[in-house]
Protein backbone atom coordinates (compact mmCIF):
# COMPACT_ATOMS: atom_id res chain seq x y z
CA UNK A 1 0.00 0.00 0.00
CA UNK A 2 1.30 3.46 -0.82
CA UNK A 3 2.07 5.69 2.13
CA UNK A 4 -0.92 7.99 2.34
CA UNK A 5 0.23 9.91 5.40
CA UNK A 6 3.20 11.65 3.79
CA UNK A 7 2.59 15.19 2.57
CA UNK A 8 1.91 15.50 -1.16
CA UNK A 9 5.17 17.36 -1.71
CA UNK A 10 8.11 18.01 0.61
CA UNK A 11 10.95 20.17 -0.64
CA UNK A 12 13.84 20.85 1.72
CA UNK A 13 16.76 23.08 0.82
CA UNK A 14 16.47 22.46 -2.94
CA UNK A 15 19.32 23.90 -5.00
CA UNK A 16 19.37 23.84 -8.80
CA UNK A 17 21.89 25.53 -11.08
CA UNK A 18 22.27 25.98 -14.83
CA UNK A 19 25.96 26.52 -15.30
CA UNK A 20 26.85 29.49 -13.08
CA UNK A 21 23.27 30.66 -12.79
CA UNK A 22 21.43 29.58 -9.64
CA UNK A 23 17.80 28.85 -10.57
CA UNK A 24 16.63 27.50 -7.21
CA UNK A 25 18.49 28.63 -4.10
CA UNK A 26 17.72 26.60 -0.98
CA UNK A 27 13.97 26.38 -1.46
CA UNK A 28 11.89 24.63 1.21
CA UNK A 29 8.14 24.13 1.14
CA UNK A 30 5.48 21.55 1.92
CA UNK A 31 2.24 20.86 0.09
CA UNK A 32 -0.59 19.26 2.07
CA UNK A 33 -2.88 16.73 0.43
CA UNK A 34 -6.22 17.77 -0.96
CA UNK A 35 -5.27 21.40 -1.45
CA UNK A 36 -4.66 23.70 -4.36
CA UNK A 37 -1.24 25.19 -3.88
CA UNK A 38 -0.01 28.00 -6.08
CA UNK A 39 3.66 28.68 -6.61
CA UNK A 40 3.64 32.31 -7.59
CA UNK A 41 6.50 34.28 -8.97
CA UNK A 42 7.78 36.24 -11.95
CA UNK A 43 9.26 34.60 -15.05
CA UNK A 44 12.64 33.11 -14.24
CA UNK A 45 11.90 32.76 -10.51
CA UNK A 46 12.61 29.02 -10.63
CA UNK A 47 8.99 27.79 -10.69
CA UNK A 48 9.28 25.42 -13.65
CA UNK A 49 12.64 24.09 -12.51
CA UNK A 50 11.13 23.30 -9.10
CA UNK A 51 8.14 21.58 -10.70
CA UNK A 52 10.33 19.55 -13.04
CA UNK A 53 12.37 18.39 -10.09
CA UNK A 54 9.18 17.17 -8.40
CA UNK A 55 8.24 15.36 -11.64
CA UNK A 56 11.58 13.57 -11.71
CA UNK A 57 12.86 15.26 -14.88
CA UNK A 58 15.74 16.84 -12.97
CA UNK A 59 17.86 15.51 -10.15
CA UNK A 60 18.23 17.87 -7.18
CA UNK A 61 21.77 19.27 -7.05
CA UNK A 62 21.27 20.05 -3.39
CA UNK A 63 18.59 19.37 -0.81
CA UNK A 64 15.82 16.80 -0.86
CA UNK A 65 12.54 16.38 -2.72
CA UNK A 66 9.80 13.86 -1.83
CA UNK A 67 6.54 13.52 -3.71
CA UNK A 68 3.84 11.36 -2.11
CA UNK A 69 6.66 10.18 0.13
CA UNK A 70 8.72 8.96 -2.84
CA UNK A 71 12.01 10.06 -4.38
CA UNK A 72 10.97 11.38 -7.82
CA UNK A 73 14.20 10.22 -9.48
CA UNK A 74 15.03 6.92 -7.75
CA UNK A 75 11.38 5.83 -7.42
CA UNK A 76 10.18 7.37 -10.67
CA UNK A 77 8.43 4.26 -12.01
CA UNK A 78 6.45 3.92 -8.82
CA UNK A 79 5.59 7.61 -8.68
CA UNK A 80 4.67 8.42 -12.29
CA UNK A 81 1.42 6.43 -12.51
CA UNK A 82 0.16 8.28 -9.41
CA UNK A 83 0.74 11.84 -10.60
CA UNK A 84 -0.53 13.89 -13.51
CA UNK A 85 1.72 16.35 -15.32
CA UNK A 86 0.77 19.30 -17.46
CA UNK A 87 3.78 20.73 -19.25
CA UNK A 88 4.09 24.44 -19.88
CA UNK A 89 3.77 23.79 -23.60
CA UNK A 90 3.69 20.98 -26.12
CA UNK A 91 3.44 17.31 -25.34
CA UNK A 92 1.89 15.66 -28.38
CA UNK A 93 2.77 14.38 -31.86
CA UNK A 94 2.62 17.22 -34.37
CA UNK A 95 0.13 15.38 -36.58
CA UNK A 96 -2.10 13.85 -33.91
CA UNK A 97 -5.71 14.92 -33.27
CA UNK A 98 -6.61 16.15 -29.80
CA UNK A 99 -9.05 13.39 -28.95
CA UNK A 100 -6.80 10.72 -30.43
CA UNK A 101 -3.91 11.91 -28.26
CA UNK A 102 -6.08 11.90 -25.15
CA UNK A 103 -7.30 8.37 -25.90
CA UNK A 104 -3.70 7.26 -26.29
CA UNK A 105 -2.63 8.65 -22.92
CA UNK A 106 -5.76 7.10 -21.36
CA UNK A 107 -4.63 3.66 -22.60
CA UNK A 108 -1.39 3.98 -20.64
CA UNK A 109 -3.38 4.05 -17.38
CA UNK A 110 -5.17 1.27 -15.53
CA UNK A 111 -8.48 2.99 -14.84
CA UNK A 112 -8.68 6.20 -16.87
CA UNK A 113 -11.49 8.75 -16.79
CA UNK A 114 -14.04 8.50 -19.60
CA UNK A 115 -12.39 10.33 -22.51
CA UNK A 116 -15.72 11.57 -23.91
CA UNK A 117 -16.53 13.28 -20.62
CA UNK A 118 -13.18 15.11 -20.53
CA UNK A 119 -13.44 16.09 -24.18
CA UNK A 120 -16.86 17.61 -23.53
CA UNK A 121 -15.88 19.15 -20.22
CA UNK A 122 -12.87 20.96 -21.67
CA UNK A 123 -14.47 21.79 -25.00
CA UNK A 124 -11.96 19.73 -26.96
CA UNK A 125 -14.68 18.49 -29.30
CA UNK A 126 -14.18 21.67 -31.33
CA UNK A 127 -10.68 20.55 -32.28
CA UNK A 128 -12.08 17.86 -34.57
CA UNK A 129 -9.56 16.53 -37.05
CA UNK A 130 -7.17 19.46 -36.73
CA UNK A 131 -3.61 18.22 -36.18
CA UNK A 132 -1.97 19.24 -32.91
CA UNK A 133 0.48 21.69 -34.52
CA UNK A 134 -2.46 23.76 -35.87
CA UNK A 135 -4.46 23.94 -32.63
CA UNK A 136 -4.62 27.33 -30.91
CA UNK A 137 -2.47 27.87 -27.83
CA UNK A 138 -5.54 27.64 -25.60
CA UNK A 139 -6.65 24.36 -27.19
CA UNK A 140 -3.17 22.89 -26.72
CA UNK A 141 -3.28 23.99 -23.05
CA UNK A 142 -6.66 22.37 -22.49
CA UNK A 143 -5.46 19.14 -24.10
CA UNK A 144 -2.40 19.30 -21.84
CA UNK A 145 -4.63 19.59 -18.78
CA UNK A 146 -6.85 16.72 -19.98
CA UNK A 147 -3.77 14.51 -20.45
CA UNK A 148 -2.64 15.38 -16.92
CA UNK A 149 -5.90 14.29 -15.27
CA UNK A 150 -7.10 11.42 -17.48
CA UNK A 151 -5.27 8.78 -15.40
CA UNK A 152 -7.19 9.69 -12.19
CA UNK A 153 -4.03 10.92 -10.42
CA UNK A 154 -3.72 11.67 -6.71
CA UNK A 155 -1.59 14.70 -7.39
CA UNK A 156 -1.47 16.99 -10.42
CA UNK A 157 1.33 19.38 -11.35
CA UNK A 158 0.20 22.10 -13.71
CA UNK A 159 2.69 24.57 -15.11
CA UNK A 160 1.12 27.92 -16.04
CA UNK A 161 -2.22 26.27 -16.84
CA UNK A 162 -4.01 29.29 -18.28
CA UNK A 163 -1.18 31.13 -20.03
CA UNK A 164 -2.50 32.27 -23.39
CA UNK A 165 -6.11 31.23 -22.72
CA UNK A 166 -9.14 33.35 -23.49
CA UNK A 167 -11.34 34.30 -20.48
CA UNK A 168 -13.93 31.55 -21.12
CA UNK A 169 -11.30 28.81 -21.33
CA UNK A 170 -9.66 30.22 -18.20
CA UNK A 171 -12.92 29.95 -16.30
CA UNK A 172 -13.45 26.37 -17.50
CA UNK A 173 -9.93 25.46 -16.40
CA UNK A 174 -10.40 27.02 -12.97
CA UNK A 175 -13.71 25.18 -12.51
CA UNK A 176 -12.12 21.88 -13.44
CA UNK A 177 -9.24 22.42 -11.00
CA UNK A 178 -11.74 23.23 -8.23
CA UNK A 179 -13.76 20.10 -9.02
CA UNK A 180 -10.58 18.04 -8.83
CA UNK A 181 -9.84 19.43 -5.38
CA UNK A 182 -13.40 18.76 -4.23
CA UNK A 183 -12.89 15.12 -5.20
CA UNK A 184 -9.68 14.92 -3.19
CA UNK A 185 -7.01 15.53 -5.84
CA UNK A 186 -4.02 17.60 -4.73
CA UNK A 187 -3.04 20.32 -7.19
CA UNK A 188 0.22 22.20 -7.44
CA UNK A 189 0.19 24.97 -9.99
CA UNK A 190 2.68 27.57 -11.01
CA UNK A 191 1.44 30.90 -12.17
CA UNK A 192 2.48 34.46 -12.59
CA UNK A 193 -1.15 35.59 -12.58
CA UNK A 194 -2.11 37.02 -9.20
CA UNK A 195 -5.84 36.68 -9.78
CA UNK A 196 -5.35 32.99 -10.52
CA UNK A 197 -3.52 32.41 -7.25
CA UNK A 198 -5.96 34.57 -5.28
CA UNK A 199 -9.03 32.92 -6.76
CA UNK A 200 -7.96 29.28 -6.75
CA UNK A 201 -5.33 28.57 -4.17
CA UNK A 202 -5.70 27.41 -0.58
CA UNK A 203 -2.03 28.10 -0.07
CA UNK A 204 0.29 30.44 -1.94
CA UNK A 205 4.07 30.22 -1.95
CA UNK A 206 5.67 33.30 -3.42
CA UNK A 207 9.10 32.65 -4.83
CA UNK A 208 11.56 35.05 -6.34
CA UNK A 209 15.08 34.39 -7.60
CA UNK A 210 14.84 30.80 -6.47
CA UNK A 211 13.95 31.45 -2.84
CA UNK A 212 10.70 31.37 -0.92
CA UNK A 213 9.80 34.86 0.21
CA UNK A 214 6.32 34.33 1.65
CA UNK A 215 3.81 31.55 2.30
CA UNK A 216 0.22 31.57 3.44
CA UNK A 217 -3.37 31.47 2.34
CA UNK A 218 -4.39 34.35 0.08
CA UNK A 219 -6.31 35.77 3.07
CA UNK A 220 -3.32 35.55 5.39
CA UNK A 221 -1.05 37.13 2.86
CA UNK A 222 -3.38 40.00 2.05
CA UNK A 223 -4.89 40.51 5.52
CA UNK A 224 -3.37 43.32 7.53
CA UNK A 225 -1.60 42.13 10.63
CA UNK A 226 -1.55 44.19 13.83
CA UNK A 227 1.65 45.84 12.65
CA UNK A 228 -0.13 47.16 9.56
CA UNK A 229 -2.64 49.96 9.62
CA UNK A 230 -4.93 50.34 6.64
CA UNK A 231 -6.56 53.65 6.12
CA UNK A 232 -9.67 53.63 3.94
CA UNK A 233 -11.09 56.92 2.80
CA UNK A 234 -14.38 57.63 1.04
CA UNK A 235 -12.99 59.55 -1.91
CA UNK A 236 -10.06 59.80 -4.25
CA UNK A 237 -7.35 61.95 -2.76
CA UNK A 238 -5.75 64.77 -4.65
CA UNK A 239 -1.96 64.44 -4.66
CA UNK A 240 -1.76 67.47 -2.39
CA UNK A 241 -4.27 65.88 0.01
CA UNK A 242 -2.31 62.64 0.21
CA UNK A 243 0.83 64.66 0.80
CA UNK A 244 -0.93 66.44 3.64
CA UNK A 245 -2.06 63.07 4.98
CA UNK A 246 1.47 61.75 4.80
CA UNK A 247 2.71 64.84 6.63
CA UNK A 248 0.12 64.43 9.39
CA UNK A 249 0.98 60.76 9.79
CA UNK A 250 4.63 61.62 9.83
CA UNK A 251 4.06 64.25 12.57
CA UNK A 252 1.97 61.81 14.57
CA UNK A 253 4.48 59.00 14.28
CA UNK A 254 7.34 61.31 15.26
CA UNK A 255 5.40 62.44 18.31
CA UNK A 256 4.68 58.84 19.31
CA UNK A 257 8.04 57.35 18.34
CA UNK A 258 6.49 55.02 15.71
CA UNK A 259 8.42 54.12 12.59
CA UNK A 260 6.06 54.00 9.59
CA UNK A 261 7.56 51.56 7.12
CA UNK A 262 5.22 52.05 4.21
CA UNK A 263 2.04 53.80 3.32
CA UNK A 264 0.00 52.40 0.48
CA UNK A 265 -3.06 53.82 -1.14
CA UNK A 266 -5.73 51.47 -2.50
CA UNK A 267 -6.57 47.94 -1.29
CA UNK A 268 -3.84 45.48 -0.54
CA UNK A 269 -3.60 42.60 -3.00
CA UNK A 270 -1.11 39.84 -3.67
CA UNK A 271 0.43 42.32 -6.05
CA UNK A 272 1.06 44.65 -3.09
CA UNK A 273 2.47 41.77 -1.12
CA UNK A 274 4.87 40.93 -3.89
CA UNK A 275 5.85 44.52 -4.43
CA UNK A 276 6.37 44.99 -0.71
CA UNK A 277 8.55 41.92 -0.40
CA UNK A 278 10.67 42.36 -3.49
CA UNK A 279 10.40 46.01 -4.37
CA UNK A 280 9.43 44.98 -7.92
CA UNK A 281 6.23 44.53 -9.91
CA UNK A 282 5.28 40.89 -10.53
CA UNK A 283 4.03 41.10 -14.08
CA UNK A 284 6.46 42.67 -16.45
Amino acid sequence: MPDTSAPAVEIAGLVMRYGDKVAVDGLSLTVERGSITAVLGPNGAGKTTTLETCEGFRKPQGGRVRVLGLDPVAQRRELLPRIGVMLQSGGAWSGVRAEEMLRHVAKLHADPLPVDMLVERLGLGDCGKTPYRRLSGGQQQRLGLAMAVVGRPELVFVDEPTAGMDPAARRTTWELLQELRTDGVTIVLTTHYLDEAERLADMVHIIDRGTLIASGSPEELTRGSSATVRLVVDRELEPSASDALRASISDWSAAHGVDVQSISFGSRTLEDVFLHLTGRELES
Partner: protein
Amino acid sequence: MSTVTPGTFTPAPGAAPLAQQVRAQAAMETKLLLRNGEQLLIALVIPVLALVGGVVGAERLGLTFDHRVVDVLTPGVLALGVLSTSFTSLAIATGFERRYGLIKRLGASPLPRFGLLLGKVIALFGVMALQAIVISAVGFALGWRPHGGLVGVVVAVAGAFLGTLAFASLGLFMAGTLRAEATLAAANLIYLLLMMGGGVVLPHSSYGGGGGVLRLLPSGALGDVMRSGLIDGQCDALGMFVLVFWAIAGSLLAGRFFKWE
Protein backbone atom coordinates in the same frame (compact mmCIF):
# COMPACT_ATOMS: atom_id res chain seq x y z
CA MET B 1 -19.90 23.14 -20.82
CA SER B 2 -21.54 20.98 -18.22
CA THR B 3 -20.51 20.43 -14.67
CA VAL B 4 -19.76 16.92 -13.52
CA THR B 5 -21.10 14.90 -10.62
CA PRO B 6 -18.99 14.98 -7.47
CA GLY B 7 -16.72 11.98 -7.16
CA THR B 8 -15.94 11.86 -10.87
CA PHE B 9 -12.29 12.72 -10.29
CA THR B 10 -11.75 10.67 -7.13
CA PRO B 11 -8.18 9.40 -7.46
CA ALA B 12 -7.74 5.85 -8.78
CA PRO B 13 -4.24 5.97 -10.24
CA GLY B 14 -2.29 3.14 -11.80
CA ALA B 15 -0.38 2.08 -14.88
CA ALA B 16 -1.98 -0.10 -17.53
CA PRO B 17 -0.30 -3.51 -17.99
CA LEU B 18 2.99 -2.99 -19.84
CA ALA B 19 1.89 -5.12 -22.82
CA GLN B 20 -1.18 -2.92 -23.28
CA GLN B 21 0.95 0.23 -23.10
CA VAL B 22 3.45 -1.04 -25.67
CA ARG B 23 0.64 -2.20 -27.95
CA ALA B 24 -1.02 1.22 -27.75
CA GLN B 25 2.30 2.95 -28.41
CA ALA B 26 3.15 0.74 -31.40
CA ALA B 27 -0.34 1.20 -32.87
CA MET B 28 -0.17 4.97 -32.51
CA GLU B 29 3.34 5.20 -34.00
CA THR B 30 2.32 3.02 -36.96
CA LYS B 31 -0.86 4.98 -37.58
CA LEU B 32 0.94 8.32 -37.53
CA LEU B 33 3.75 7.05 -39.79
CA LEU B 34 1.24 5.83 -42.35
CA ARG B 35 -0.98 8.91 -42.09
CA ASN B 36 1.79 11.26 -43.11
CA GLY B 37 1.60 11.64 -46.88
CA GLU B 38 5.24 12.56 -47.27
CA GLN B 39 6.33 9.51 -45.31
CA LEU B 40 4.18 7.27 -47.50
CA LEU B 41 5.77 8.79 -50.58
CA ILE B 42 9.18 7.92 -49.24
CA ALA B 43 8.18 4.50 -47.90
CA LEU B 44 6.16 3.13 -50.83
CA VAL B 45 5.75 5.38 -53.85
CA ILE B 46 9.42 6.14 -54.47
CA PRO B 47 10.61 2.51 -54.02
CA VAL B 48 7.87 1.19 -56.32
CA LEU B 49 8.67 3.87 -58.92
CA ALA B 50 12.37 3.03 -58.64
CA LEU B 51 11.65 -0.65 -59.22
CA VAL B 52 9.24 -0.23 -62.13
CA GLY B 53 11.24 2.63 -63.65
CA GLY B 54 14.50 0.71 -63.26
CA VAL B 55 13.21 -2.46 -64.91
CA VAL B 56 11.44 -0.64 -67.77
CA GLY B 57 14.28 1.85 -68.24
CA ALA B 58 16.99 -0.83 -68.31
CA GLU B 59 15.05 -2.65 -71.01
CA ARG B 60 14.67 0.50 -73.12
CA LEU B 61 18.30 1.50 -72.73
CA GLY B 62 19.60 -2.04 -73.12
CA LEU B 63 21.41 -1.98 -69.75
CA THR B 64 22.50 -5.39 -68.50
CA PHE B 65 23.69 -6.80 -65.18
CA ASP B 66 25.18 -10.19 -64.35
CA HIS B 67 21.64 -11.40 -63.76
CA ARG B 68 18.16 -10.49 -65.00
CA VAL B 69 17.41 -6.84 -64.29
CA VAL B 70 14.37 -7.47 -62.08
CA ASP B 71 16.28 -10.08 -60.03
CA VAL B 72 19.02 -7.53 -59.33
CA LEU B 73 16.80 -4.51 -58.70
CA THR B 74 14.13 -6.06 -56.44
CA PRO B 75 16.54 -6.94 -53.57
CA GLY B 76 18.06 -3.46 -53.93
CA VAL B 77 14.65 -1.82 -53.68
CA LEU B 78 13.84 -3.95 -50.61
CA ALA B 79 17.03 -2.50 -49.09
CA LEU B 80 15.82 0.98 -50.10
CA GLY B 81 12.63 0.29 -48.14
CA VAL B 82 14.66 -0.39 -45.00
CA LEU B 83 16.63 2.83 -45.54
CA SER B 84 13.48 4.90 -46.04
CA THR B 85 11.71 3.73 -42.90
CA SER B 86 14.43 3.11 -40.37
CA PHE B 87 16.46 6.17 -41.33
CA THR B 88 14.44 8.88 -43.06
CA SER B 89 10.97 8.35 -41.56
CA LEU B 90 12.31 7.63 -38.08
CA ALA B 91 14.61 10.66 -38.07
CA ILE B 92 11.92 13.07 -39.27
CA ALA B 93 9.30 11.73 -36.86
CA THR B 94 11.68 11.81 -33.91
CA GLY B 95 12.86 15.34 -34.77
CA PHE B 96 9.30 16.64 -34.56
CA GLU B 97 8.53 14.59 -31.45
CA ARG B 98 11.36 16.42 -29.73
CA ARG B 99 10.17 19.76 -31.06
CA TYR B 100 6.60 19.24 -29.81
CA GLY B 101 7.59 17.90 -26.39
CA LEU B 102 6.02 14.50 -27.03
CA ILE B 103 8.99 12.58 -25.70
CA LYS B 104 8.98 14.66 -22.53
CA ARG B 105 5.23 14.21 -22.12
CA LEU B 106 5.46 10.44 -22.46
CA GLY B 107 8.40 10.60 -20.06
CA ALA B 108 5.94 11.79 -17.42
CA SER B 109 3.42 9.03 -18.23
CA PRO B 110 3.41 5.47 -16.92
CA LEU B 111 5.07 4.30 -20.17
CA PRO B 112 8.70 3.43 -19.38
CA ARG B 113 11.40 4.55 -21.80
CA PHE B 114 12.11 1.04 -23.02
CA GLY B 115 8.37 0.66 -23.65
CA LEU B 116 8.55 3.77 -25.82
CA LEU B 117 11.54 2.40 -27.76
CA LEU B 118 9.90 -1.01 -28.10
CA GLY B 119 6.74 0.63 -29.44
CA LYS B 120 8.83 2.50 -32.01
CA VAL B 121 10.72 -0.62 -33.07
CA ILE B 122 7.50 -2.61 -33.51
CA ALA B 123 6.06 0.23 -35.58
CA LEU B 124 9.21 0.32 -37.76
CA PHE B 125 9.11 -3.42 -38.40
CA GLY B 126 5.37 -3.24 -39.07
CA VAL B 127 5.84 -0.56 -41.72
CA MET B 128 8.83 -2.40 -43.22
CA ALA B 129 6.82 -5.64 -43.44
CA LEU B 130 4.15 -3.74 -45.33
CA GLN B 131 6.80 -2.28 -47.64
CA ALA B 132 8.34 -5.72 -48.23
CA ILE B 133 4.94 -7.14 -49.20
CA VAL B 134 4.17 -4.31 -51.64
CA ILE B 135 7.67 -4.23 -53.17
CA SER B 136 7.81 -8.02 -53.52
CA ALA B 137 4.36 -8.08 -55.12
CA VAL B 138 5.43 -5.47 -57.67
CA GLY B 139 8.66 -7.43 -58.24
CA PHE B 140 6.76 -10.67 -58.84
CA ALA B 141 4.43 -8.86 -61.23
CA LEU B 142 7.51 -7.74 -63.17
CA GLY B 143 8.80 -11.34 -63.29
CA TRP B 144 11.10 -11.44 -60.24
CA ARG B 145 12.35 -14.95 -59.44
CA PRO B 146 14.29 -14.89 -56.16
CA HIS B 147 17.00 -17.53 -55.89
CA GLY B 148 18.82 -18.66 -52.82
CA GLY B 149 15.83 -20.42 -51.24
CA LEU B 150 15.39 -20.38 -47.50
CA VAL B 151 19.04 -19.43 -46.87
CA GLY B 152 18.55 -16.41 -49.08
CA VAL B 153 15.48 -15.30 -47.15
CA VAL B 154 17.25 -15.75 -43.81
CA VAL B 155 20.23 -13.71 -45.04
CA ALA B 156 17.89 -10.98 -46.32
CA VAL B 157 15.95 -10.82 -43.05
CA ALA B 158 19.17 -10.76 -40.98
CA GLY B 159 20.55 -8.04 -43.24
CA ALA B 160 17.34 -6.02 -42.90
CA PHE B 161 17.55 -6.38 -39.12
CA LEU B 162 21.18 -5.22 -38.93
CA GLY B 163 20.45 -2.50 -41.48
CA THR B 164 17.60 -1.30 -39.30
CA LEU B 165 19.90 -1.07 -36.28
CA ALA B 166 22.51 0.82 -38.28
CA PHE B 167 20.12 3.25 -39.98
CA ALA B 168 17.87 3.75 -36.95
CA SER B 169 20.77 4.62 -34.66
CA LEU B 170 22.20 7.03 -37.25
CA GLY B 171 18.74 8.52 -37.78
CA LEU B 172 18.25 9.00 -34.03
CA PHE B 173 21.70 10.55 -33.75
CA MET B 174 20.75 13.10 -36.39
CA ALA B 175 17.25 13.75 -35.00
CA GLY B 176 18.59 14.03 -31.46
CA THR B 177 21.16 16.67 -32.28
CA LEU B 178 19.73 18.85 -35.10
CA ARG B 179 16.66 21.09 -35.17
CA ALA B 180 13.50 19.44 -36.55
CA GLU B 181 13.60 21.40 -39.84
CA ALA B 182 17.26 20.61 -40.40
CA THR B 183 16.56 16.93 -39.75
CA LEU B 184 13.67 17.01 -42.22
CA ALA B 185 15.84 18.48 -44.96
CA ALA B 186 18.92 16.38 -44.25
CA ALA B 187 17.05 13.08 -43.91
CA ASN B 188 15.33 13.58 -47.27
CA LEU B 189 18.51 14.71 -48.99
CA ILE B 190 20.56 11.79 -47.67
CA TYR B 191 17.80 9.41 -48.75
CA LEU B 192 17.85 10.74 -52.32
CA LEU B 193 21.65 10.80 -52.52
CA LEU B 194 21.98 7.24 -51.22
CA MET B 195 19.19 6.02 -53.51
CA MET B 196 21.02 7.43 -56.54
CA GLY B 197 24.64 6.97 -55.58
CA GLY B 198 24.82 4.85 -52.42
CA GLY B 199 25.03 1.38 -53.92
CA VAL B 200 21.68 0.42 -52.48
CA VAL B 201 19.38 -0.04 -55.52
CA LEU B 202 22.17 -0.59 -58.04
CA PRO B 203 25.11 -2.89 -57.24
CA HIS B 204 28.36 -1.07 -56.50
CA SER B 205 29.86 -2.62 -59.63
CA SER B 206 27.59 -0.40 -61.76
CA TYR B 207 29.34 2.72 -60.50
CA GLY B 208 32.63 1.97 -62.24
CA GLY B 209 36.11 1.78 -60.75
CA GLY B 210 35.51 3.76 -57.55
CA GLY B 211 32.31 1.86 -56.74
CA GLY B 212 34.04 -0.44 -54.28
CA VAL B 213 34.10 2.37 -51.71
CA LEU B 214 30.31 2.17 -51.59
CA ARG B 215 30.60 -1.25 -49.96
CA LEU B 216 31.72 0.55 -46.80
CA LEU B 217 28.57 2.67 -46.60
CA PRO B 218 25.61 1.19 -44.70
CA SER B 219 23.49 1.65 -47.83
CA GLY B 220 25.91 -0.20 -50.10
CA ALA B 221 26.48 -2.92 -47.51
CA LEU B 222 22.75 -3.53 -47.06
CA GLY B 223 22.24 -3.63 -50.82
CA ASP B 224 25.07 -6.15 -51.17
CA VAL B 225 23.71 -8.36 -48.38
CA MET B 226 20.21 -8.36 -49.87
CA ARG B 227 21.51 -9.18 -53.36
CA SER B 228 23.91 -11.86 -52.14
CA GLY B 229 21.06 -13.57 -50.31
CA LEU B 230 18.24 -13.23 -52.81
CA ILE B 231 20.30 -13.76 -55.99
CA ASP B 232 22.89 -16.35 -54.96
CA GLY B 233 21.77 -17.73 -51.61
CA GLN B 234 25.11 -16.53 -50.17
CA CYS B 235 25.89 -14.31 -47.25
CA ASP B 236 27.99 -11.24 -48.07
CA ALA B 237 30.31 -11.32 -45.05
CA LEU B 238 31.89 -7.91 -45.69
CA GLY B 239 28.44 -6.34 -45.97
CA MET B 240 27.32 -7.92 -42.70
CA PHE B 241 30.50 -6.74 -40.99
CA VAL B 242 30.05 -3.19 -42.30
CA LEU B 243 26.44 -3.13 -41.06
CA VAL B 244 27.51 -4.29 -37.59
CA PHE B 245 30.19 -1.59 -37.58
CA TRP B 246 27.69 1.16 -38.45
CA ALA B 247 25.16 -0.18 -35.93
CA ILE B 248 27.76 0.07 -33.17
CA ALA B 249 29.05 3.45 -34.33
CA GLY B 250 25.51 4.84 -34.68
CA SER B 251 24.45 3.56 -31.26
CA LEU B 252 27.49 5.08 -29.59
CA LEU B 253 26.88 8.42 -31.30
CA ALA B 254 23.16 8.42 -30.52
CA GLY B 255 23.76 7.32 -26.93
CA ARG B 256 26.34 10.04 -26.42
CA PHE B 257 24.71 12.98 -28.19
CA PHE B 258 20.95 12.38 -28.32
CA LYS B 259 19.03 15.06 -26.40
CA TRP B 260 15.48 14.20 -25.37
CA GLU B 261 14.45 17.84 -25.38
